[in-house]
């Protein structure tokens, strides 16, 4: 049988590794890493390897489905789109344009998909665009942006670093191919530091592992800043010429007495002093990567800002071995924020979290659930959701389910019948990454790629065709003038100087710009003052604290709930709620678990593998305990894995307590109590 190889990029997660797809008679029969792709040099993680399991899954939804009193009914695509368009028109006529909304998840696409959805919302007159960015990425984005005016995070120059600090991140599970970059730095002689409440996989290879109490990262960073500024261990020249607010930061940090920091963070004074010295001695070749671990706390943005301030202080910004400021390829922006501004229509959540909206045009998903249920501040009656599963991945899933089920129109584009899709009126089959073509940039290596459509299925639309067809039915066709994704790609690429043909000829991508260091020598930064803003003039103008002031997490003051629950760490085989339906993955890792310190378990007389009840102030969930080694989790802290099919910790994560700047829920700062379940014996857990 003829075996054809098509080169594309994996998108089982958003790392987008170079992939060879084997096709036999139009069917995907296998995949392997593309040895010539500079991102992954021939390697694929287990998720990537199982891509055919998803593409060819027997439970894939391949026909449009409509919910009827008799259950799901297959209908034709054109009919489905007509009915959906009719309903949208009705809702918008009755309640106003803003009563419609759309939500972009990550299960289908990412950047390109996101911009299409943003475009669609504004094209039909609603500002209500939602995504997982109400609880991911944006906190750190803002922290860096306020300080350095950057669009993407400054990315560590791992290979040339003398010291690498991985703070609240676990690349092997979350950004697999960053692991190699960190380890390359290690082999080149960098000292690796990991700061985390858990001994993450990356922390196993750190020279210094610094366990820290959840949410206290800002106190540690400010303690470090105190030492660095007091001893004069910072880049005087850089700070003098390129920074704003240094004195204010220095005098604020001076309050962070190391005895207090030790008490607050659980990190010993010696460890803090040792880290400060290491940072100083390694500067400016210090690479700091901040992960999602610092985001989900009441002080997430300011904690992340305090950590990110170290980059400027040490003169590591855009320096060799420091944090590189990335340059984009100049791919066109699809959003309509200039052409059709809609902020006057009270985007959902923009009053409560004005910075989130102002910075990102991002509406707040948790506020949306309240708005749907209460009709306050106005009726939000319809939603089109694409590749997201908030009924599993948002906090307080019971409320999410209730809210989404009460919509007048709920349309879900999906590959599978998810917890969220079950609540829909219509489910539309959707293209996987192999069934569409899109532009993708590996920003850290300045590599521009175009993925080909490997194959296609009837009635299974890619994102562009869907938004195009719906916009045209709703009289907003002028905003979707391109015939198909191919034409769109050509338009998107125009300003880059590369064409679709150029990129097709280079399936391993094109480096659009060699890296340049110290660009701040040539042009001011994109902050309001043009300088590094240790004191954020932007936040000050918003009536918020200009300095990254510290606020202690509230779980510390809750004697009723003596444990702090963190959530969100990942297992290797899954991306949040995704891939639990791959039978061979489910069999390999069938059960959710709650990681617990052996001394905590002993105190509560809990055995490894025993099911316990975990209670937060909004409810209780049962999970199976995994007792880990003494140094694998900090005492008093438990970690509950999220979004498994059973025992989902998001039943007790809280939606209504948020970081006031980002609006993020406190997914890693939840006060809980843990109860033995009567008569519950233990069964040993499966290996990870």
């Amino acid at each position, binding site marked *: 049988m003829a075996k054809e190889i098509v080169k594309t990029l994996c998108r089982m997660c958003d790392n987008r590794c170079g992939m060879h797809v084997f096709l036999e008679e139009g069917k995907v029969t296998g995949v*392997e*890493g593309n040895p010539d792709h500079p991102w992954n040099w*021939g*390697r*694929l*993680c*287990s998720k990537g*390897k*199982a891509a055919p399991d998803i593409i060819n899954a027997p439970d894939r939804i391949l026909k449009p489905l409509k919910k009827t009193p008799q259950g799901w009914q297959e209908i034709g695509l054109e009919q489905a789109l007509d009915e959906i368009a009719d309903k949208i028109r009705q809702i918008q006529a009755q309640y106003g344009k803003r009563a419609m909304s759309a939500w972009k998840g990550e299960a289908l696409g990412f950047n390109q998909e996101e911009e299409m959805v943003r475009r669609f919302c504004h094209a039909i007159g609603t500002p209500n665009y939602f995504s997982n960015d109400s609880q991911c990425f944006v906190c750190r984005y803002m922290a860096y942006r306020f300080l350095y005016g950057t669009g993407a995070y400054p990315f560590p120059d791992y290979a*040339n670093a*003398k010291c690498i600090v991985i703070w609240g991140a676990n690349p*092997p*599970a979350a950004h*697999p*191919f960053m*692991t*190699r970059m960190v*380890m*390359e730095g*290690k*082999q*080149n*002689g960098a000292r690796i530091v990991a700061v985390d409440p858990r*001994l993450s*996989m*990356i*922390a*196993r*290879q*750190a020279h210094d*592992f610094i366990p820290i109490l959840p949410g206290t990262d800002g106190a540690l960073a400010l303690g470090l800043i105190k030492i660095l500024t007091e001893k004069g261990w910072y880049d005087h020249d850089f700070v003098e010429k390129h920074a704003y607010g240094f004195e204010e930061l220095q005098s604020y940090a001076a309050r962070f007495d190391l005895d207090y920091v030790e008490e607050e963070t659980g990190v010993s004074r010696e460890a803090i002093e040792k880290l400060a010295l290491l940072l100083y001695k390694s500067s400016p070749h210090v690479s700091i990567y901040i992960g999602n671990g610092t985001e989900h706390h009441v002080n997430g943005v300011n904690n992340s800002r305090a950590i990110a301030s170290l980059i400027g202080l040490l003169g590591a910004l855009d320096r*060799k071995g420091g944090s590189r400021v990335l340059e984009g390829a100049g791919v066109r922006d699809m959003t309509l924020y200039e052409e059709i501004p809609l902020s006057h229509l009270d985007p959902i959540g923009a009053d409560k979290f004005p910075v989130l909206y102002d910075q990102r045009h991002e509406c707040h998903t948790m506020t949306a659930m309240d708005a749907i249920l209460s009709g306050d501040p106005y009726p939000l009656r319809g939603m089109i959701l694409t590749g997201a599963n908030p009924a599993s991945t948002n906090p307080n899933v019971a409320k999410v389910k209730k809210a989404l089920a009460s919509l007048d129109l709920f349309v879900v584009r999906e590959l599978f019948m998810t917890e969220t899709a079950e609540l829909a009126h219509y489910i539309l089959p959707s293209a996987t990454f192999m069934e569409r073509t899109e532009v993708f940039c590996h920003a850290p290596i300045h590599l521009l790629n175009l993925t080909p459509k490997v194959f296609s299925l009837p009635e299974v639309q890619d994102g562009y065709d869907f938004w195009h067809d719906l916009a045209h039915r709703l009289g907003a066709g002028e905003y979707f003038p391109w015939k198909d994704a191919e034409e769109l790609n050509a338009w998107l690429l125009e300003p880059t100087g590369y064409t679709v043909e150029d990129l097709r000829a280079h399936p391993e991508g094109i480096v659009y710009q060699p890296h340049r260091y110290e660009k701040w020598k040539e042009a001011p930064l994109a902050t309001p003052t043009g300088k590094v803003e240790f004191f954020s003039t932007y936040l000050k103008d918003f009536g918020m604290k200009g300095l990254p002031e510290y606020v202690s997490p509230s779980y510390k003051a809750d004697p009723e709930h003596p444990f702090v629950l963190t959530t969100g760490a990942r297992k*290797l*085989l899954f991306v949040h709620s995704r891939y639990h339906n791959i039978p*061979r*993955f489910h*069999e*390999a*890792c069938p059960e959710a678990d709650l990681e617990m310190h052996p001394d905590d378990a002993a105190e509560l007389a809990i055995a490894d593998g025993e099911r316990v009840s975990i209670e937060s102030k909004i409810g209780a969930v049962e999970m199976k305990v995994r007792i*880990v*080694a*003494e*140094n*694998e989790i900090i005492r008093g802290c438990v970690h509950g894995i999220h979004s498994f099919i059973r025992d989902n910790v998001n039943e007790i994560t809280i939606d209504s307590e948020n970081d006031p700047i980002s609006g993020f829920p406190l997914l890693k700062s939840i006060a809980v109590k843990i109860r033995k379940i009567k008569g519950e014996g233990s069964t040993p857990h499966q*290996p*990870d």
Partner: protein
Amino acid sequence: MKIITINPDICVGCGNCEYACANEQKGNFDIKNSWIRVNFYPADRVCIPWNCAQCEDAWCMRVCPAGAISRDPKTGAVLIDEGLCAGCKMCMLACPYGSIHFDLEAAVSRKCDLCGGDPQCVRACLSGALQFVEVDRAYEFRRRQFDNVLRAMPGIAKQDGEER
């Protein structure tokens, strides 16, 4: 000839190699079907991804009474012929590294066969801890590591250049 080298300084114990091997051998992700095994020792934070060394004078091959073990002339892998294997498990005992496993379903011993020359564990290793390299380039990373120590040493590093 190529061999698999391991680097315990950068292995993060993620287990992708074990999954990849199980997938190659049995089409699933049950790591009991993996011939490579990763041991993680939390107290000293050590990860060891250990696999058959394809010994030149292999204990397993010498001990096998059925003569079921031979060398693949193409890859140098030590192979067990499942048609000849009697399931006596002597090779498991003889191997000083515990690199031979028993397949209960087929009732024969199993071991790494280098996937015929493209070992899948290496193709899955995120950190780069596993490499499949020509023997004369093996453990180059150790030499590089040592060079880095020397290069940073005062008196060796040049005064004006980048030290590294």
